């Protein structure tokens, strides 16, 4: 049993989203849903986070930012793509600036489709991610070292 399930901390990043999914994520924090009762806290700091919630399809400008933020999250970590834009680009898929889905840039563990994704689905996705997180932690304990994905030069 790991303690990651009991105290997962979120980092929420808006990768060129229309803000619809972002509002739903923040709604999950309000007293109506109150995810803090599960020990979940929304940190603003990658170095404190376990779960990376990303909304929006990635564009060329924030691709590197996404990678940097992802790399500053200590292992074990999971990435959840919230909303259909983060999953595959959504209705903006054909746009010239959208790369289409964050899994083009960083590895994703859980997809939460929806436009906008509802708080209940988001919570469901987070709970699924917790199970994956636990598996990663157990795998980490048996491995001897973690390889860091080094970033390339700044664009």
């Amino acid at each position: 049993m790991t303690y990651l399930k009991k105290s997962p901390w979120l980092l929420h990043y808006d990768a060129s989203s229309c803000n619809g999914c972002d509002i739903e994520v923040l709604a999950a924090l309000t007293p109506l849903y109150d995810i803090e009762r599960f020990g979940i806290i929304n940190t603003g700091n990658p170095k404190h986070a376990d779960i990376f919630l990303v909304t929006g399809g990635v564009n060329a400008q924030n691709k590197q930012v996404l990678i940097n933020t992802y790399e500053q999250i200590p292992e074990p970590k999971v990435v959840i793509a919230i909303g259909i834009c983060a999953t595959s680009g959504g209705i903006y898929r054909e746009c010239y600036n959208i790369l289409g889905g964050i899994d083009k840039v960083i590895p994703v563990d859980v997809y939460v489709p929806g436009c906008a994704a509802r708080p209940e689905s988001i919570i469901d996705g987070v709970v699924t991610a917790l199970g994956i997180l636990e598996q990663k932690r157990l795998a980490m304990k048996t491995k001897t070292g973690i390889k860091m994905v080094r970033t390339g030069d700044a664009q």
Partner: protein
Amino acid sequence: MSLLQLLLYLILFPLITALFMLVSRKDPGLKAIIQLSACAICIVSFLVLLFGFDKGTLIFSMDPDPVSQIMFFIELVLAAYILYLGIRHRKSVTVFLILVQACLLLWFELGFSENLHIGNNLFLDQFSIIMALIIGIIGSLICVYAVGYMETYHHHHTEIRDRRNLFFGILFIFLSAMFGLVFSNNLLWVFFFWEITTICSFLLIGYSQSEEATNNSFLALSMNLLGGVAFMAALIYLVILDPAGQLLGLNFLISSGKAVALVPAVLICFAGITKAALMPFSSWLVGAMVAPTPVSALLHSSTMVKAGVYMIVRFAPVLSGTTEGLIIALVGGTTFALASFIAISQNNAKKVLAYSTIANLGLIVACAGVGTYNLMWVAILLIIFHAIAKSLMFLCVGTVEHRIGSRNIEDMGGLIVRMPKLAIMMFIGMAGMFLAPFGMVISKWAAIEAFITAPFGLIFIAILAFGGSATVFFWSKWMGKIISVMRDEPVIEDTVKKEKWVVLYILTALVVIVCLIFPLISSILIEPFILNIYGQTARLSQANLSIMLMMLCLLLIMPFSLLFYRKGAHYAPPYMGGRPVEGHMRFSGSMGVTRELVLSNYYLTGLFGEERLFMVGTSLCWALLLFAGILLAGVIL
């Protein structure tokens, strides 16, 4: 070898070295001579400690003539020289003061000197041993350092005339004068050596002969001359009181009791205040920072200004319990608080060190002015710890300045990468100034515990509490600046010469060692001295001592954890909002423009600005001094 011979050696031998410096031309053998002389002085100081520590107070009788005559003659020559320089540079205040002092000198010599019969001219007690060790060890280390420093200095500043022989000559004359000051029992001799140190400081500050240096040297000279006039007035008062001159013996004067000694004590303490650059006379020390760094390290932090507080601490038994003593202590305390506040707003490293020095001297005077037995213990401890840590800081800043070309703290960012050994030494020096369990905190702790039982102690505790937190602030932010890690910076400290490294290593080790052995120093030297004067002595309780030793050992062991940690850590860039950062914190900002991140410390100039606080301090202290003067006039009349 008798102790008297050792003392005379310490006073006279540096003069021989100085003479050698002054007459020979630029000679590659000069370096060896300086190093050998420095070693000799250091060793003889240790011999004085070895032979003298358990002897209590020793008074040596010797015939004052012809030494007194020679001193008088030199004083007149120097007065004439200063008069000439003052007229040439049109410094009316200096001219006025030197004329007053020369007149007083002539009046004294012509009116009173026939009847003088002073036999006890030199003496040695534990406090003199401590001062001699400080002068001998730290002074000689700084002289050795100065050789390499001056070479780089003239290499960088080709516009300044190379008068290195004069420089080193004056340094050794100064050392000789300092030894003379702490070993003299005859107040006339003390005054002579006092004025010699004033002249040395004047010549050394003006070394670069730029307009700013000349102005600042005359400022220092005038303020110190003002103190000299007060000193002279005290001497005349004493000789009028007792024409045979017995009261001119320091030992006898202090033990004569308050009724006799108070007036001259206050006058000499005024001279001490000007020499120690307390407010309202602090501007000369800040201005003296234009001098080359060894001068700042030797004269203006560890030795000459210590001569000022040395005299005040000597007179502490006379001042204790009197209103004048309390006023002098308040001048010291106000200086401590305000100088610490001003240091927060300074980004020039040497100015920060100058204000910190002024603040610590103020604290020593505050302890001495209230003058209870435990406060005197604290004052002497403060003198020791401050001298070592501050000289280390000055020398480090001097070396850093030569490598990075700037005195600004803001340019010292990331020093731990660029100059790792120096950064660690600076770290230890700064820790020695304000962190537990190093020396200054021990002194502050003992000071609070001592003030609480003293009359009006609450005022001083408040000053210590607020001023002390100000010191925490400005030292910590400087520390933080030098340990921030900026990757990919080249290491630039390999060009520092070996002699400088030796000196710096020794001083850093001394900071730690003195902290470890201070209970020994206290029981061997300080406590017997205080016991002798007050009949009771202070010490830190055994339990507290062991706890502090434990903390110090823990502190010394902790850095070894770094070896353990280097293996398991994974590296990530600092958080910049996710922006990709490279090398020197360059990031691509909006519109695709590459920007560089610049982080600067808080200087809080709105709250702690120099001009405003300086005005507050000067006015407060002038008011206090005038009040003391009025009281004194009442006593005389």
